């Protein structure tokens, strides 16, 4: 268009910007009222949005009685975990905060944003009135830990190695702290509950399913018939049954099969069930990644003299996994949300505690508040996961090459 204009005219136009993009009115006219039907559509949409917003805001601020959430806040977070042992949960949280702070300082980027979100969450909790003063003290300590980690992290010698080791031992350490295992007074797993239990089950399932899934995927592509058919059978059976069936098996059938006096804790049973279930899906995701690689990659690895283990570890897997990050994260998010099913088999995870809380005669009929609250919690966590995956994809250049 500009090429058809004479030079002096184009100068004139740059001096006088087109009116249609000027100000709010111009923008409105261009985007919302540019034709008769679009104008009608705009008006209708605005009305619909107005009524929905008005309804929800009135409900949130006037009808809803949030006491059911605030007074049971501790239950939602840690379930019935013994009150005088709560310092153990806080210590675990402090350790995780430290790792977040250190990682944020060292790697910046996504983990820094996540740490900021974490810090904001802590901050919000220090401000709201219903958190106890000890809780606020712990939260303040946690904020300090993140900040300290952030500034000290990059200056520490071998900081990367330390932080990585920290992440690796974090999970066993947390389990050790929570349970006690004889060193501290034992806190039985059946009173672990709320968000704590939800996070533990999903972390175990997601982390545990990863190595098993990779092995199954490799097994499925193996040339040895026994391994191959075993893996295929496993994957297809698990994928063919619903997760709730797996949980019912874990809760109801396994105790009947076990010998007399031999008991596996019900939380452990559910964790095993969830891990084995996710592993089958993980295996198929990883296999998808393996298939996306060209034959040439395998041959090239062979050509430079790598043995099968090395070529898998250094050539094939890094590329295969990179290609399926979105699928793996999607699987993890769905596993995280699927942990709610344990509420049906008698564990009190976040959903389970919600159902328990709404049975409290003091709060009868306040189920909407409870469900809205836990939905918000699930959303915050699931969105953080999908956000980090998007950032990870970007930094690894998935889909750009």
């Amino acid at each position, binding site marked *: 268009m500009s090429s058809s204009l004479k030079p002096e005219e184009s100068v004139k136009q740059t001096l006088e910007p087109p009116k249609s993009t000027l100000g709010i009115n111009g923008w409105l006219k261009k985007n919302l009222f540019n034709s008769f039907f679009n104008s009608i559509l705009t008006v209708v949409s605005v009305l619909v949005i107005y009524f929905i917003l008005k309804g929800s805001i009135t409900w949130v601020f006037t009808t809803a009685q949030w006491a059911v959430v605030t*007074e*049971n806040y*501790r*239950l939602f977070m840690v*379930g*019935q*975990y013994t*009150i005088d042992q709560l310092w153990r949960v806080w210590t675990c949280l402090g350790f995780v905060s430290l790792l977040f702070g250190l990682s944020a300082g060292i790697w910046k980027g996504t983990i820094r944003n996540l740490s900021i979100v974490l810090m904001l969450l802590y901050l919000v909790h220090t401000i709201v009135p219903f958190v106890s003063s000890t809780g606020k003290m712990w939260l303040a300590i946690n904020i300090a830990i993140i900040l300290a980690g952030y500034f000290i992290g990059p200056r520490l010698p071998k900081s990367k190695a330390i932080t990585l080791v920290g992440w690796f031992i974090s999970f066993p350490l947390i389990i050790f702290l929570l349970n006690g295992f004889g060193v501290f007074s034992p806190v*039985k797993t*059946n009173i672990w509950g709320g968000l704590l239990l939800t996070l533990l089950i999903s972390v175990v399932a997601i982390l545990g399913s990863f190595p098993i899934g990779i092995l199954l995927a490799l097994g499925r592509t193996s040339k040895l018939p026994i391994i191959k*058919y075993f893996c*295929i*059978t496993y994957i*297809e*059976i698990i994928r*063919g049954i619903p997760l*709730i*069936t797996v949980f*019912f*098996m874990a*809760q*109801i*059938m396994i*105790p*009947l099969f*076990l010998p*007399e*006096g031999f*008991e596996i804790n*019900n939380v452990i049973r559910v964790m095993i069930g969830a891990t084995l279930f996710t592993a089958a899906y993980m295996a198929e995701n990883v296999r998808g990644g393996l298939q996306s690689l060209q034959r040439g990659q395998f041959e090239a690895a062979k050509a430079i003299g790598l043995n099968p283990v090395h070529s898998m570890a250094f050539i094939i897997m890094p590329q295969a996994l990179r290609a399926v990050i979105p699928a793996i994260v999607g699987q993890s998010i769905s596993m995280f949300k699927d942990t709610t099913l344990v509420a*049906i*088999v*008698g564990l*009190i995870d976040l959903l*389970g*505690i919600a*159902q*328990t*809380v*709404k*049975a*409290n*005669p*003091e709060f*009868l*009929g306040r*189920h909407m508040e409870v469900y809205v609250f836990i939905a918000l919690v699930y959303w915050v966590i699931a969105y953080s996961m999908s956000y980090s995956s998007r950032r990870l994809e970007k930094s690894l250049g998935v889909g750009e090459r």
Partner: protein
Amino acid sequence: MGKRKNSLSVLLASLFLIFALFLAGCTSDEDASTDEPSTTDDGGSDDGGSDTTSGDEGESSTEGSTLATVEDRGYVVVGGNGQLPGFGYVNSDGENVGFDVDFGKAIAAAIFDDPEAIEVRPLSAQERFTALQTGEIDILIRNTTWTTTRDTELGTHFAPTTFYDGQGIMVTKESGITTLAELEGARIGVETGTTTELNLADQFRKLGITYEQVVFDDSDSLVEAYESGSVDAWTTDKSGLVSRQATLTEPEAHKILSEALSKEPLGPTVRQGDDQWFNIVKWVTFATIEAEELGINSENIEEFMDSEDPVIRRFLGNEGELGAMMGLPNDFAYRVIKHVGNYDEIFARHLGPDTVFNLERGLNENWTNGGLLYSPPFR
């Protein structure tokens, strides 16, 4: 090509084989999860009748004495309901409380002189009997209806009924309905998968009333539908109806029909094969009922300690060897009443006029007041 075809057929064949095996292996599991599909039963009548797994496990798993196991462990494991208002729930301090929980506490008080020596395992309707049979819990107190199947095939023993419930129907006063027969053509809301659904169908078929059944997954959505007027009436256990009525926006605008659709006697359950443990649970439960009859409660119990009445002296363990006969200290009843209270106190604490439920004793009145609670003599 031929090779590939061959391996494909092997794969298919093996998959089918395994699938078939799997199906065969899973049949019993399927039963377990479909027979009692009620997930969040809010009433006592959640049983789908038959439950799988026969009682064999129950007998085999109780070779040792439950009492000895419990004493070694130091606390009683009670299988309970964590989500039933009034009967079992977790309060804001994270403690398990409720009518059912208190009977668990009574057992603990009798054995350990400490009502807090219990651990409550929240159980779903489906897993409760498995948990009892496998010894995961010592006693099941989870609004469980006493039925023939459960008492025989499932290998459980029912201790005395602690709460007589029955299915009822709630309607609005405005509708002017007073009897079941007037519900002709009405839309009736019911929770799916519970026996309330079956009882409703049975009763209305018997009376020859046509009605439209509207099923809901949980009681909250059912109550909301009723309040918004999309169903004309709704049904669940009477105790559930009463407790829900208190939370409606206009409680006075509704009423519960006096006719009952079913009998739901709820009580503690133990596994078969350990008579001593069964006796303990039975007589601890009776102790709460007997204490009410004798007028003994947790406040005035000390005054009765030097009573001359032989009945009271035997009951409180000042005379005779009643406790020792079942492996308990002789003053077990004293401990129960001291720590947990008599039946009246337990009822008032969780369901009585001071609670939102404001339930009438009704059938759950002592026999001396025209109710069904009757304790055999302590002698």
